[in-house]
């Protein structure tokens, strides 16, 4: 093996995505591309009602359509229920429907058109029930009960629930009620954020196949083959050993593909027909039935002393849960944990309520509740600065968490790059030139800033690193690359840990049969948690390589080192070395056995210290490590129409260590643009319980034509002690400060504070004409 320059492909190199060529040339296989011999196509019969009892089904007409193989209703599914936090959701509606679009029956047929035609012929006898379309309606005294069995559902945390309230959470430190008296300035306001659609370019889909032994293989668009396995097995009451979950390429996931969608439906159809069955949702179905970002209503109050020292914060939030719990209790708890922001505020209380409604379920979405609360809290930091006549960035610097400070609740923070993020963003944006910028005639321009933090972590992960006979490497982690590039990043880490070029490391596709458990590609966690396992497992391979070399060279293991290009040699003796080929050959054929390194772990640092904080109904005891960020946006307002456009952005994010700087920049840019959509144009509009704009024509996310040309990604590296090469996550944090920074710029430009997203031309124009309450 010729020695190669490993530094060009290892940690710190902007290695192009391993799958870039296959994706650009259209050869990558996504779930919709997959075909199995004898495969049937499925279609859903969806509920037209928001809330109704199912009295009976008539499927005769659908069954009679030539080409139809199978029609299943709720009567044909087991009674299992799934749910990440509260097991409240059947695979298909049983007994009643709880939101418009909920699957009520499924058809498998020889082709998709036949399946869809037959699905439309299914007759369901419904008895309409009163509807609770909003949290306000759902907590009214005479509200219909959406989950009669809530008290009896299995819950993975001590949920405080009852009526239509799925979960209540509270977290507090200090003495908030007394602290207001110490404040010289107090700002208070109601903030509102809309439902945002994930809008993955790939709608969800799944394909299941049963083997001769009755065991099922399931491919699907997903963020975790292991969550797919758990959810399907819970819903269909199957032993996990009877279901193998695999993944094709995934066309983006922002939380929408983490928990179940249509997977249980195709598994049940495959089990009933004995044939492979594929179901791909069209765009409208994907909009109406998968999940979306929670609408939040937030009341927030913040107080400070005259010199700008922050004293107290109180925040309460009401989240629309939608019809099923899904990830919602987690989103509520996490948003409250983020409500202090990255500041020293000694007295804080955050509380929230998650309310079931007859709308589609809401769930995980990049940021996990943090962008919503950050919109409120970072707006108020600017309001306080305005009231005190202070520079908003100075106020943030003054109150920022210092190294060693603990997070709200008492969790340890081992690395904190916030000061560097603020300073670098400030310098790059030219903050010193003043917040009001020169603008063309008929326009106004201003800068706005927001700081934030986010976690990377949560739950279990693992890695298996194997040395092949020729000394090259196979890495297997079970982590799904959803398009964000984790396969590339994990490969780079493995390559660097073993000092081999990246092209000598193959990465296995996730497989619940063969991969170590990985909770999922979510919570900005793969680089940090899985990377840590990769480094540990590769370290175990390196140890074994050295042990072989020490036996061959008859020297101490401590005297050996790995050398670039896949070699092991005696320190200080350049010509005493062996290639991995030689070592692995010996291991395979002569002594010791093939070399395998494995590592598994579960994140276990407590997020709450009971001596510091009071917590009720918190859904996760152990959350993760902290990243920090600061973003400045230059926003232009059209004085005629009120339309706001972002013209330039500086986003400084602390990632611990950029394993692949090009990928980190991609995440910062992508997070920014998705956050800009949330801030300015994206809104799922509901007509009562029903989504009114389930199409890309009516729901508008920004495209490359709307994104500012200059998005300056500034990478800050405050190394995380336990992180792989010091790295922590970047998947979500880039989005978190965006709505707040844009809203702060808009407030600066028009003189009015807007507290409701999106900042549509209409709202901005109203604010500009009112030209009012901003200090």
């Amino acid at each position, binding site marked *: 093996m010729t020695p190669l320059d490993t530094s060009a492909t290892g940690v710190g190199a902007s290695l192009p995505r391993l799958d870039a060529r296959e994706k650009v040339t259209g050869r990558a296989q996504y779930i919709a591309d997959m075909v199995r011999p004898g495969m049937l196509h499925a279609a859903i019969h969806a509920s037209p009602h928001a809330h109704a009892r199912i009295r009976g089904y008539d499927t005769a007409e659908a069954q009679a359509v030539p080409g139809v193989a199978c029609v299943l209703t709720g009567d044909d599914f087991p009674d299992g229920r799934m749910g990440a936090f509260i097991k409240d959701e059947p695979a298909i509606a049983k007994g009643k429907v709880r939101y418009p679009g909920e699957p009520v029956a499924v058809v498998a047929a020889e082709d998709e058109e036949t399946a869809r035609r037959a699905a439309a012929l299914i007759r369901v006898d419904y008895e309409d029930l009163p509807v609770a379309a909003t949290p306000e309606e759902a907590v009214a005294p005479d509200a219909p009960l959406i989950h009669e069995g809530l008290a009896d559902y299995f819950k993975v945390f001590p949920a405080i629930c009852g009526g239509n309230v799925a979960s209540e959470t509270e977290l507090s430190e200090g003495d908030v009620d007394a602290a207001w008296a110490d404040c010289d300035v107090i700002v208070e306001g109601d903030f509102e954020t809309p439902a945002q659609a994930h809008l993955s370019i790939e709608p969800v889909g799944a394909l299941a196949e049963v083997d001769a032994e009755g065991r099922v293989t399931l491919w699907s668009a997903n963020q975790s083959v292991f969550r797919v396995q758990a959810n399907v097995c819970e819903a269909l009451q199957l032993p996990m050993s009877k279901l193998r979950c695999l993944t094709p390429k995934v066309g983006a996931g922002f939380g929408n593909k983490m928990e179940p969608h249509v997977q249980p439906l195709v598994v049940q159809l495959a089990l009933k027909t004995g044939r492979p069955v594929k179901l791909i949702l069209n765009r409208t179905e994907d909009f109406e039935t998968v999940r979306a970002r929670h609408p939040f209503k937030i009341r927030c109050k913040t107080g400070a002393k005259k010199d700008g020292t922050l004293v107290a914060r109180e925040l309460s939030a009401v989240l629309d849960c939608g019809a099923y719990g899904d990830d919602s209790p987690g989103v509520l708890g996490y948003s409250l944990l983020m409500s202090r922001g990255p500041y020293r505020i000694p007295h804080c209380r955050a509380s929230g309520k998650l309310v079931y409604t007859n709308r589609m379920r809401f769930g995980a979405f990049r940021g996990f509740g943090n962008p919503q609360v950050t919109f409120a809290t970072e707006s108020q930091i600017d309001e306080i600065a305005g009231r005190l006549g202070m520079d908003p960035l100075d106020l943030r610097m003054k109150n920022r968490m210092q190294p060693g400070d603990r997070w709200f609740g008492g969790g340890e923070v081992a690395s904190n790059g916030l000061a560097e993020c603020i300073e670098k963003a400030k310098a790059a944006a030219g903050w010193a030139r003043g917040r009001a910028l020169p603008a063309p005639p*008929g326009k106004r321009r201003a800068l706005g800033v927001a700081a934030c933090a986010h976690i990377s972590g949560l739950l279990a992960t693992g890695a298996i690193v194997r040395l092949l006979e020729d000394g090259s490497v196979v890495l297997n982690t079970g982590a799904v690359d959803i398009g964000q590039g984790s396969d590339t990043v994990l490969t780079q880490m493995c390559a660097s840990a073993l000092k081999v070029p990246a092209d000598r490391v193959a990465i296995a596709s996730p497989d619940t049969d063969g991969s170590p458990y990985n909770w999922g590609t979510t919570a900005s966690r793969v680089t940090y948690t899985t990377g840590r396992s990769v480094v540990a497992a590769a370290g175990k391979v390196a140890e074994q390589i050295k042990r072989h070399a020490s036996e061959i060279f008859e020297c101490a293991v401590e005297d050996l080192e790995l050398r670039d290009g896949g070699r092991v040699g005696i320190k200080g003796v350049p010509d005493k070395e062996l290639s991995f080929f030689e070592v692995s050959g010996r291991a395979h054929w002569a002594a010791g056995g093939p070399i395998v390194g494995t590592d598994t772990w579960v994140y276990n640092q407590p997020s709450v210290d009971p001596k510091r904080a009071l917590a009720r109904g918190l859904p996760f005891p152990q959350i993760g490590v902290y990243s920090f960020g600061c973003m400045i946006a230059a926003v232009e307002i059209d004085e*005629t129409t*009120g339309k706001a456009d972002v013209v330039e952005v500086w986003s400084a994010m602390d990632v611990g260590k950029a394993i692949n700087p090009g990928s980190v920049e991609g995440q910062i840019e992508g997070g920014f643009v998705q956050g800009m959509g949330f801030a300015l144009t994206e*809104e799922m509009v509901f007509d009562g319980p029903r989504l009114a704009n389930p199409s890309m024509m009516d729901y*508008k996310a920004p*495209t490359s*034509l709307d994104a500012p040309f200059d998005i300056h990604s500034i990478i800050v590296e405050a190394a995380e002690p336990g992180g792989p090469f010091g790295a922590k996550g970047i998947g979500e944090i880039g989005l978190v400060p965006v709505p707040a920074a844009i809203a702060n710029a808009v407030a600066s430009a028009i003189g009015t504070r807007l507290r409701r997203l999106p900042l*549509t*031309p209409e709202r901005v*124009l109203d604010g500009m004409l009112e030209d009012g309450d901003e200090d």
Partner: protein
Amino acid sequence: MEFVRPDSIEATVAALQADGAACLAGGATLVAMMNADLVAPHRLVSLRDVAALREAARQPDGTVVVGAMRRHRETAEETDLRDGQLVLSEAAAQIANPPVRNMGTIGGSCAFADPAADYPPALLAADARFSLIGAEGRRTVPAGDFFLDWYETALEPGELIESVVLPPAPARTVGSYTKLARVAGDFAIASVALVLGMDGRACIHLAVAVGACGPAPVRRRDVEADLIGGGLGDTEIRRLTDALAEAFDPVDDVRASADYRRRVAPRMVRQALVEAQQRISETP
């Protein structure tokens, strides 16, 4: 569904005389609607091979005839359009996005008659006429009589848009098209098409049409006529915007509220007229 591909206008008209026949021009709208199960024509009559529909030509008097199959991109870059006629190319340049502009046609867009589309106000401001052909022969319909209601035009069943005819614009007029949309490429929340001519401080040509503020583009020729010959200051513009606003009949939709459209469209008209006067005064 039957698919036919005639190669002449006569054969096309013949093919359209069947129940459930629909013209397939660029497909930008029709195919999307078929995919969404909103329409299901029995016969698709492709216009692709009808060469005569693809031409645009300028006549000696300055009249420009734009064939129904001209793509938006071609119209956006049309060198035969001059002076005030440029309102049409400005509108074409702002339709959707490059792939749609490469597919979509002026005939297809106008026949669909989405009130938030870009051509209807531009054609109304340009005093354009539609040349229609059917089993009974040809007829000409002015743009103001063509766009009738929500997605409804003067086209009779079995009739085809052959071309759109723009009369010569008076020399030294300017045309402009301003569009407000949520994101680049979206349909308009409101849009303003205008053709303006000034002689010193006197207004000698004035045509202002507002899109997306009702079932059809709105124009107030009566007030325009009153303003010809005089100045075009705040008071005069106010007279026009007030009159236009009276004629608006907007709805609430996912793009914006009716109330906002009522308020923003007059502001856009004012801004567009101020900018157009500035452009004229800066032109030597």
